[in-house]
């Protein structure tokens, strides 16, 4: 899941991005409203974590501009303003969720995962395909109730494709969706992750879910 974290506190940026990456999110960081709009102009995000009190352009203006430009990515407002009218204003302007500071980091992760499930149309946190279960909360994969050990990159690939069954994603699309702007991931690296994922599933006795469409990309049918 690719995130844009818009927060002017460098310290909060550091800790949040570290924790979110640890949970398998691809995180881009913007420190003010102007930077946030610049990122959204060239990247597609599954969700944006947006602070409201930002330098240059405030969070609500950023949100308003995003919606006016037709961008439908999920927006989770992360703000110290806890008044009902602040929440209502944020949600009315098109935010999908609102979390008041200080917050529990796990709650933020859960809310982002919930937004991701909503986006993919699969409500259950556990996706089951041909006996393979992908638990997006525990971030675990199992086959016939036996755990299948995957690296974070392999898990990300599997969950991403599993949530979007039937859709073909090119190398570039996968790089764009699964890795943050600071990660210099190549096509070869994606191929290597796909190959490793297939091997791990095979060694667990699971069917090969990830199918290659030559010249187009990869999908799970």
């Amino acid at each position, binding site marked *: 899941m690719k995130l844009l974290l818009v927060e002017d506190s460098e310290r*909060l940026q550091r800790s949040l991005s570290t924790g979110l990456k*640890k949970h398998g999110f691809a995180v881009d960081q913007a420190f003010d409203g102007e930077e946030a709009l610049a990122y959204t102009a060239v990247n597609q995000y599954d969700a944006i974590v947006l602070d409201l009190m930002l330098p240059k352009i405030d969070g609500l203006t950023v949100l308003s501009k995003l919606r006016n430009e037709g961008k439908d990515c999920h927006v989770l407002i992360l703000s*110290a303003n806890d008044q009902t009218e602040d929440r209502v204003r944020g949600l009315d302007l098109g935010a999908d969720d609102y979390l008041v500071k200080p917050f529990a980091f796990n709650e933020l992760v859960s809310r982002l995962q919930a937004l991701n499930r909503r986006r993919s149309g699969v409500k259950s946190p556990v996706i089951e395909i041909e006996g393979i279960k992908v638990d997006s909360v525990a971030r675990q994969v199992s086959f016939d109730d036996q755990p299948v050990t995957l690296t974070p990159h392999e898990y990300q690939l599997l969950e991403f494709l599993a949530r979007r069954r039937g859709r073909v994603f090119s190398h570039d699309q996968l790089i764009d969706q699964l890795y943050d702007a600071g990660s210099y991931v190549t096509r070869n690296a994606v191929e290597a992750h796909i190959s490793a994922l297939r091997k791990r599933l095979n060694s667990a006795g699971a069917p090969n879910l990830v199918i290659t469409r030559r010249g187009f990309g990869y999908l799970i049918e």
Partner: protein
Amino acid sequence: MYSIRNKLNLTIIGSMIVVLSITAGFLYLRVSGHVAKVFDDAIYDKAQALISLTELDEEGLEFDFAEEGVMLEFQQHQLPQYYQLWENGVDLLIKSPLLGETDLPLIGTEPGAHQFADMTLPDGRNGRLIEINFLPRVEIEDDEEDEDYGAEIPPPKPVTMVFSRERESLDDTLFAIASTIFGVIVIVLLISGLLIWRLVGNGLSPLSNLAKQVSTIDESNLDARLNHEGAQSVEIAPIENQINHLLERLQSAFEREKRFSANAAHELRTPLSELKTLAEVAKMVPDDREQVLSFFDDIGEISGQMEKMVATLLELSRSEAGLLRTDPENIELAGFCEQIWLHAVNGQGADKVLRRHIPEGLVINTDREKLGMILSNLFVNAVSYSPDNAEIAINAEIRNDNVVLEVRNASIDLKPEDILHMKDRFWRKQKVHGESGHSGLGLTLVDALAGVMKLDVSLRLDNQQTFMVTISGLSPSVH
């Protein structure tokens, strides 16, 4: 609680009842007294007429009025009048034939005097009598003198006459007068009462309107203002104006309170949020020593920032509680400003310069520590909230034996209305990228410290977006 309208109505109407009752009573007494006097005069005249018809001759007393057919009012049975005469007040001389066995009462009057009294007539009617004590007229006829020469007229003896007549006509007249007077008074009171009720209501309608408007105002509509239709009264206008001013101040205070809560929440929650996330994420990466150490650095920074905020808040509380004292000393202003600038900016405003326009050798006498804190806050704000490569200026000049200091800088996106809030606690126009040391308390502290030092701090924004802080009231050194 009482109603002003009811109280006014009752007071005015009550006063009117008292005044009109006294007037009516006085009028009645005057008129009835006059009517009674006219009645008594008539009785007196009649009595005098009877006296003139009483004469003494050689044959004794003659009562011409008693002759049959002379004065029918003493003889008729319908509404008769009565008389009775005594000699020396004891011996009955004559009385109305209609009295029969009954006597008229004797009061006892001095010779030559008369008096009136009320009585009940023998026929049962209310009556009034006059008792006159007189000497009868002596009748001397010339021809009789000649014929009866030698006959002597006895000396006259005092005769007491009582004449009485009914007084129902008087009573009826007095009753009519009383009825008229009191009837008129009652009607006047009724009409006046209605008029007063109406007029007082109309007169108090601006007050009622004011009360009605005020009763609809609560904390949810403090933006409401009192208004009126038509001309304003001189009595209500100051109340309305004062309430409107009060509402303005109340609204402003509510908004300031609201802003304060939101800003304070933000300034306190953000570092808390940072600490919480750092702690939670650090637990997720226990093996990444470098990351964990950087988190510890962050925690140290946050603690320092919060410590500074708490120290500022404590300083503000002390100044408000009057616990801060000033310790004045002589300070060479130009060098002091340079020193504070270098210490406050500490490399963060490397692209910004301080232009000093301070007379060389100008020495002021003030509290070094507090002036240092004031200037430090102003310099840090000027550096943080001015465009890149901006020039910060500090000017000093002597006006009216006082040193006036002015710190000015080009501002970013500041609006004139922001000036009103800049001294509020935790107020910030907007965050500056990467800032972590600001909490929106700087100008609040500057204002509080200036108050302790008896200085005046004013903020201005000119048309060229230059923000100016002027500190006046500094004393130049006498040495």
